[in-house]
């Protein structure tokens, strides 16, 4: 009877009363965050659907006409095609190149961050579970790695690994995982000191149970926040690495590589080759960072004023 009425009450609860609903409501309370979120959704859709919505497949050489080369924005090509963002020297539509570039940039950012999250989380849990010398060794590695700028480590790694999307992802995983490990271990120390952990230990619950059932759910919000902001970092890092010629291969140019390719034409006034991919990169970064900032404010009560 009691169970039945409880379930009834639960069913009648509005979705805004769930923790997720509450977070969503306070997230969209900010106009800037809402706009950023919408922009981010549009960017993601554009990247995801690039093959469908891009006016041209920029890497299908049969579709390119050298006669359409180096056209400024809003030029009409030989077959009456409008190049909104202009073309490069091979007659490639820059808008299409940007959409495809976004695809590469975003997937590198998201994939590397996800793997780094999983790996970092695992290491953090291992560190927290075993403690002792395992913990000491893992944390020493984390400290060492975090004391060096990510770009330096990534550069050296890529010099060793060579170019390639998979290699960039691997390098980004390696430079990112330590953040999560440190966060979850830090959280583990904090949570361990809290009363419910104490209570769980008094109930003689196993270490693993405390870790997975109690610690993990409590650590998730800050981890999500870090992960979102870290996607932004990863995209920026990939762009910088590709710009240096250490990142993705020329066959799959990301936004960074597009900017780098446009660099030499900039001095002769073909600004659209660098400016538009840059604007796309900038918008992505700003949107990701603003969404991440707002998530941090919403999910992390400690940061609230």
């Amino acid at each position: 009877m009691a169970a039945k009425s409880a379930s009834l009450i639960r069913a009648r609860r509005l979705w805004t009363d769930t923790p997720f609903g509450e977070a969503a409501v306070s997230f969209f309370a900010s106009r800037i965050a809402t706009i950023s979120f919408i922009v981010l959704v549009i960017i993601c859709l554009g990247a995801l659907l690039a093959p469908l919505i891009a006016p041209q497949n920029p890497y299908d050489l049969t579709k390119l006409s050298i006669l359409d080369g180096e056209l400024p924005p809003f030029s009409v090509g030989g077959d009456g095609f409008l190049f909104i963002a202009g073309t490069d020297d091979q007659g490639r539509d820059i808008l299409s190149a940007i959409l495809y570039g976004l695809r590469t940039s975003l997937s590198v950012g998201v994939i590397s961050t996800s793997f780094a999250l999983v790996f970092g989380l695992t290491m953090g849990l291992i560190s927290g579970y075993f403690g002792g010398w395992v913990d000491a060794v893992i944390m020493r590695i984390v400290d060492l790695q975090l004391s060096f700028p990510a770009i330096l480590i990534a550069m050296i790694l890529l010099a060793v690994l060579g170019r390639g999307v998979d290699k960039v992802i691997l390098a980004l995983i390696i430079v990112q995982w330590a953040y999560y490990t440190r966060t979850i271990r830090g959280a583990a120390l904090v949570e361990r000191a809290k009363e419910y952990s104490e209570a769980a230990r008094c109930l003689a619950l196993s270490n693993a149970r405390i870790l997975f059932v109690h610690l993990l759910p409590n650590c998730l919000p800050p981890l999500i926040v870090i992960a979102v902001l870290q996607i932004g970092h990863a995209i920026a890092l990939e762009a910088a690495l590709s710009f240096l010629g250490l990142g993705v291969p020329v066959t799959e140019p990301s936004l960074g590589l597009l900017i780098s390719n446009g660099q030499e034409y900039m001095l002769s006034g073909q600004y659209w080759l660098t400016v538009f991919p840059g604007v796309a990169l900038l918008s992505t970064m700003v949107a990701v960072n603003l969404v991440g900032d707002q998530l941090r404010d919403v999910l992390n009560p400690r940061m609230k004023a």
Partner: protein
Amino acid sequence: MIVYLINRVGQSLFVLSAMSLIVFVGIYVIGDPVQILVSPEASAEEIAQVRRNLGLDLSLPTQYLRFLSGATSGDLGSSFVYNESAIVVILRHFPATLELALAAMFIAIALGIPLGVWAGIRSETFSAKAIMAASTVGASLPTFWVGLILIMCFAVYLGWLPASGRGATRSVFGVELSIFTRDGLAHIILPALNLALFKVSLVIRLARAGAREIVGQEFIKFARATGQSPARIVLGHLLKNIMIPIVTVLGLEFGSVLAFSVVTERVFSWPGMGNLLVRSLFLLDRPIVVAYLMLTVVIFVVINFTVDVIYTFLDPRIRFSAKAG
């Protein structure tokens, strides 16, 4: 203090050897620098000769041991490309990078602290909100792209400043520096601005957070109640309090500025260590890469140490506990 120092140094030595090992093995695995160095027409005999000269005919462990024994006496091997001691090559490029990084730090502080303090003490004004919005966008700007835009605006279209390279240098205490010549100054403005941008938003945020916290403190109210001028209150009372966290963070960030100067140096063809590093990575010039890493680690250790010292100097509370303990 001494224990702490030894600990630091030991830790750094460990990092050094770990990094050098990775680079050693890595570059050994990925390619043969000899193939890049010799001309395509070189005979097998000549290639073998070059290989012997560079010590690349030995087994990897032997090479590494050789390197280690050299490193302990301060010799990091000779560059494959320049035929000079790698340390010498790196140090020759070091002043340009240091100069650029310091100029960038200077700009970041000179812009960031006034803007941040203003945004902190007048947080309700429109200008303060504009500053914060700009700093959010600034934190998201891709450095290298901004560099290109700067070149496009100020060098290509306006023609005010040179687009790339380093200007004339003048020897200051035996170090070739360009900031003391007019030409040099013109050349360093854009790259320094570019590199600074990366830290300005950080300084603004730190200064704002600090100013907001301090301005509500009772000692500020007390100073106002004694009739001290706003200038004295901000420059005397407030600034000294917020400088502590800013100096700490900036000091620790100096290393990342040095590292990030790699990107800026590429954009502006700045003849510094970063440019050298990227070139050497492409040419598989292992001794240069290793020497760069060594120097970076040494710089990091020095920075961390210096920050600790400055911190103690700025905050009497810490000085006191150090004296007592």
